[in-house]
């Protein structure tokens, strides 16, 4: 120590005349643009999926109903309420928010004397910082708490698949399925949208745990046709999937197929897994008309309850539209058989080639059985009724699709035009492409629809795949006339469609005759929808039951026909048309029949 050490510290006196820091930087500055301050939620974008609640490590978030926000498909109607007594402002809730509606503003001062005010619903309860735009938002891009992109589904190449009817979607491998299942945030928003209300988050969890038997049990709780649904379901669930708001929705349908594909075909294995080897009969008999999805679903759930079921089917095999409407390349027959064989193994009796109304009357069924379920479906093709549509080379898609399955000779001509933009139109388009490939070695099919490309009712992937296979899709044109030359079909005249619905939202298409096109064709196939054939209902029955303005039978919540207690109706003739609605109302009708017979 020396004398310098005594005097050197006095150098601090050099700062004595400087302004203090508090004068240079007074209190009240704005926080940094990324600051994690108070919550704000865009309640119109929020869907109440609850992932914020799931990830909150402090249990600071509750999901509560909010007045004025209606619970509907894709929106639970709940909104997060934050308890600032617990919140630690880690913003994990923001980082995981599936809709990116939740954020933290950079406001950080709030004084209130009532502690209960610090529990509030961001975005609903008005706060001073609601308009503040700065603050913590979900970091973008390439920063996500769950996989944004779905697993690529292996498919046969378009060149390979268009020359045969073999299934071209290859299904997920175990690794792919687990990675896809890993993306699920288990919010359960999809369950309400699924017509059958399947336990989607639960069976996806079973995939993550690699427990296929558990997955199978969950599937059969609400859906007895998992192999079929896993391939051709219209997957409305995926439309509302919460992670689809910022990323690809989960491949729920393919995951369902993955579970079903893992179970061996043997019915005994099915019975072991599902615990249905030992069902008790209750002595009551039910007749089911039609073996489509609704009929099979009703048969399955009634059989579980101990009823003796007889299914009457007009065609030589069970499955209805699933077998006779959907082409084999989308739904192979052995997969239909896999599901149906298990239902048959529960003691369900199938009677084929029996047309109710012709071979046996409905009245007779009502006498022989305790109740009747009718799910006869939509098997009549609708015609456009344009001039020339009565030509012999104008066909109905449902008839052709059925003939392809039953093995009847199907007329295949070098140039085909399909009218229609739905899934059935795509099915016949792609089937005809395959048949043309077989016969002529090249594809020349054109499909035209009223709707614009963005509004075509067919699934997007169907349109894309049809194009890949060499089919031409020309959306936005309305058919006007089948062009004939000496009674021989030459083509289809179409006009550009300007609008489909009028001001009253009634179907009333407007065309621009100036934009006329003629599609050359040797064969025109109409595929603009199907109608029901209710000719099996006698006049007496018809007089007892009621019909609504669309010609559908009026049923109650149990699918019991109004006025005729022993008759239950379901399937496409009530709701749909699609498989999953049929399965759902088959199940509900089964419960209705059980209530009707057992009180």
């Amino acid at each position, binding site marked *: 120590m020396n004398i310098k050490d005594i005097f050197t510290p006095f150098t601090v006196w050099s700062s004595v005349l400087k302004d203090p820091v508090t004068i240079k930087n007074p209190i009240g500055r704005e926080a940094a643009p990324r600051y994690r301050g108070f919550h704000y939620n865009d309640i119109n974008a929020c869907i*109440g*999926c*609850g992932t914020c*609640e799931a990830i909150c490590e402090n249990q600071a*978030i*509750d*999901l*509560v*109903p909010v007045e004025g926000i209606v*619970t*509907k*498909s894709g929106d*639970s*109607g*709940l909104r997060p309420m934050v*308890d600032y*007594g617990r919140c630690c402002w880690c913003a994990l809730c923001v980082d995981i928010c599936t809709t990116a509606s939740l954020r933290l503003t950079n406001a950080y001062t709030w004084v209130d004397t009532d502690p209960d005010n610090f*529990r509030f619903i961001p975005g609903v309860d008005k706060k001073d910082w609601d308009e503040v735009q700065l603050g913590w938002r979900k970091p973008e891009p390439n920063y996500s708490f769950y996989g944004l992109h779905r697993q690529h589904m292996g498919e046969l190449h378009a060149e390979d698949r268009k020359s045969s009817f073999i299934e071209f979607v290859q299904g997920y491998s175990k690794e792919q399925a687990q990675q896809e299942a890993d993306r699920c945030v288990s*919010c*359960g*928003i999809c*369950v*309400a949208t699924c017509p059958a*209300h399947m*336990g989607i*988050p639960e069976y996806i969890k079973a995939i993550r745990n690699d427990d296929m038997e558990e997955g199978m049990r969950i599937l*059969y*709780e*609400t859906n007895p046709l998992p192999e079929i649904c896993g391939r051709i379901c219209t997957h409305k669930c995926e439309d509302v999937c919460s992670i689809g708001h910022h990323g690809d929705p989960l491949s729920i349908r393919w995951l369902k197929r993955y579970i079903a594909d893992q179970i061996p075909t043997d019915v005994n294995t099915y019975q072991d897994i599902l*615990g*249905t080897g*030992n*069902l*008790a009969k*209750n002595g009551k008999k039910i007749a089911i008309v039609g073996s489509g999805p609704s009929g099979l679903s009703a048969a399955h*759930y009634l059989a*579980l*309850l*101990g009823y003796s079921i007889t299914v009457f089917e007009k065609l030589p095999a069970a499955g209805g539209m699933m077998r006779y409407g959907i082409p084999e390349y989308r739904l192979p027959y052995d997969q239909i058989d896999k599901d149906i064989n298990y239902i048959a193994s529960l003691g369900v009796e199938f009677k084929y080639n029996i047309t109710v109304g012709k071979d046996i009357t409905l009245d007779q069924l009502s006498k022989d059985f305790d109740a009747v379920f009718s799910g006869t479906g939509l098997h009549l093709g609708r015609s456009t009724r344009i001039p020339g549509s009565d030509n012999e080379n104008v066909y109905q898609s449902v008839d052709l699709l059925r003939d392809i399955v039953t093995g009847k000779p199907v007329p295949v001509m070098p140039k085909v035009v399909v009218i229609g933009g739905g899934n059935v139109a795509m099915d016949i388009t792609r089937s005809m492409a395959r048949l043309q490939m077989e016969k002529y070695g090249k594809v020349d099919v054109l499909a035209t629809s009223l709707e614009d490309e963005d509004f075509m009712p067919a699934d997007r992937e169907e349109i894309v795949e049809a194009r890949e296979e060499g089919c031409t899709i020309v959306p936005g044109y309305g058919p006007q006339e089948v062009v004939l030359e000496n009674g021989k079909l030459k083509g289809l005249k179409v006009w550009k469609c300007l609008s489909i619905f009028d001001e009253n939202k009634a179907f009333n298409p407007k065309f621009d005759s100036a934009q006329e096109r003629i599609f050359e064709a040797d064969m025109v196939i109409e595929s603009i929808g199907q109608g029901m054939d209710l000719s099996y209902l006698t006049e007496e029955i018809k007089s007892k039951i009621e019909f609504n303005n669309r010609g559908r039978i009026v049923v109650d*919540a149990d699918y019991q026909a109004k006025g005729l207690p022993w008759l239950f109706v379901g399937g496409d003739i009530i709701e749909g048309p699609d498989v999953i609605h049929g399965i*759902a109302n088959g*199940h*509900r009708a089964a*419960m209705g029949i*059980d209530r009707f017979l057992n009180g």
Partner: protein
Amino acid sequence: MEHARLQLVNKLFNDRPKSYKYNLFQMKLLIDRLTQHYNLTDYKQQRHNLAFVTVDKQLSPDIITHLRDYEGFSHFVLLSCVDWIEDDKLQLTYLLNQPNHKYEIGVRVLIDRKNPEMVSLHKMWKQIWTYQRELHEAFGIIFPGSPRLEENFVLEGWTEKPHMLRDFDTKEYAERTYFPRPGRTSNDPATYMREKLYPNQPVTAKTNKND
């Protein structure tokens, strides 16, 4: 600038594996030497500079002394305990560091969970008694002879079972001891939507089975 940075990173990815290999080689030699004297089970090379071995409870003081005195593991890093409640075992982990070779070894000792007792090593390193005191409080392990073993470490007046055991439920304790904020309820979206949109529709399959 970017070029210089890339050169740096490339250098790193060239140099690191060499030192990793050297480290691994040294650790392999160490394990070879140890297996000549002791019965090591469950040897796992977690990283190039970190390995775990399991040894017998009776042998563990011996092997730890050997490591310190003959293998240069002079720096005692950590004594920790893991509760394997399913196997009815407590796992004590003695983590030792070799400052010259710069690698670490974790010596695992499995002791009985019902009668947890372990030899005290407080004479080997001066901080070990602290760890032993903490483990006594947190897991109920007895280290005979360890100084101030019975003194409270962080929990004054604790009467419950040792709090770090797996079967001590923190949440249940908190709910029992403190009061929850009144008026807090939450809803599961899927359940709430079912109640609102389709309360009467079947979501499970009913079965009628023979007993």
